[in-house]
């Protein structure tokens, strides 16, 4: 677990709390990701991913994480999942696919763990 990745240093397994330290660390990644809310920027990114990301001052290592769709690595580098899903959207990967990849599982393997797929998701009204 990396420094600043937990909330008041109380670790929650498998979890990175988005603290100020992480927001500072991931600022370039997150700024690039947020820019994809503009359709013209999405097109520019898709036309030249690395060139587009360099405009945001991203390091070669950060650009490489995006190139490899390494969402877990991007979170570890300070990326926030709520903006990373915009990158996922631009490259055609939805949140379920991103999550399975973060867990190191195939999409099918991950989906087989879901209550709705297992037939055990029961609505409750009390």
């Amino acid at each position, binding site marked *: 677990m990396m420094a600043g990745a937990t909330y008041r240093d109380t670790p929650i397994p*498998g*979890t990175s709390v988005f603290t100020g330290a992480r927001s500072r660390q991931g600022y370039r990644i997150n700024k690039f990701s947020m820019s994809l809310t503009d359709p013209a920027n999405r097109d520019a990114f898709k036309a030249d991913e690395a060139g587009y990301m360099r405009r945001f001052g991203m390091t070669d290592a950060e650009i490489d994480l995006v190139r490899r769709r390494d969402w877990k690595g991007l979170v570890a580098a300070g990326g926030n999942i709520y903006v990373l899903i915009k990158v996922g959207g631009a490259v055609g990967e939805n949140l379920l696919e991103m999550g399975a990849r973060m867990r190191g599982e195939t999409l099918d393997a991950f989906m087989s763990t*879901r209550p709705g797929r297992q037939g055990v998701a029961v609505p*409750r009204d009390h």
Partner: protein
Amino acid sequence: MARIVGGIGCSHAPSIAHSFDRGLQKDPMWKPLYDGFEPAKEWLDKLKPDLIVAVYNDHMNRFFFDAYPTFALGVADRHPQADEGWGKRDFPDLPGDADFSWHLAQSLVEDEFDPTICQEMTVDHGILSILPLLTDNRWPAPLVPLAANVIQHPLPTPKRFFHLGQAIRHAVEIYPKDLRVLVVATGGMSHQLHGDRFGFMNPEWDNEFLDKLESDPQALVALRHHDYMERGGAESVEMIMWLAMRSALGETVRRVHRHYYAPMLTGYGLIVFEGVDG
């Protein structure tokens, strides 16, 4: 004088918006969610509020970390939809109420809340994923968006949200127009969207939260952010926004409806209250 006539707490999620837009209302996976909203929809249809105050969070669509407001109040007469990264949905802009919003700004600041005042406020799935499930109208009443930071720590405390709801109630009660106001809070319930714990849900905790929200909200106010994140996943901490809806209704509430369903990534909760304190 204006008064609060009801409150709704419910989850928000991009997945809800996607299911709606793809017409999956009858799909076996999604039908229980939509069925669960029906009683709330009928209630709202009869209630016919004049105004909706919505406590929610933006997901880096209006705000970014260059300047991230802890609280932000939309004060325009119109709130356009944000493009979240995959194009806008086929909805008209949300109507607002600038007069009431500026009154709310004044009253909140007098009550020692200091929101960023936004004359341009695009809204995202924090509001628009669930509003179409609550009504067939586009849209049922002017809506005042009150966004909170529940993403970049440090976050406002649960107690702060409880006080925020009380301040909203006070602002409504001193507004000179005879408006009937609905307070909505969205977010959660249990989910974690990153890391090895991606996909974590905790229906038992979510339902305990719903129990306590109704009958013992102080037990929820007393919890730390860490408790919420541990029990419900890091991103579920946004559930604390529901406390603002609960406190806006006063000491005691009557539960009109409650529903919970957790099929995929997020515990989808829905609770509808009416105040009984007059």
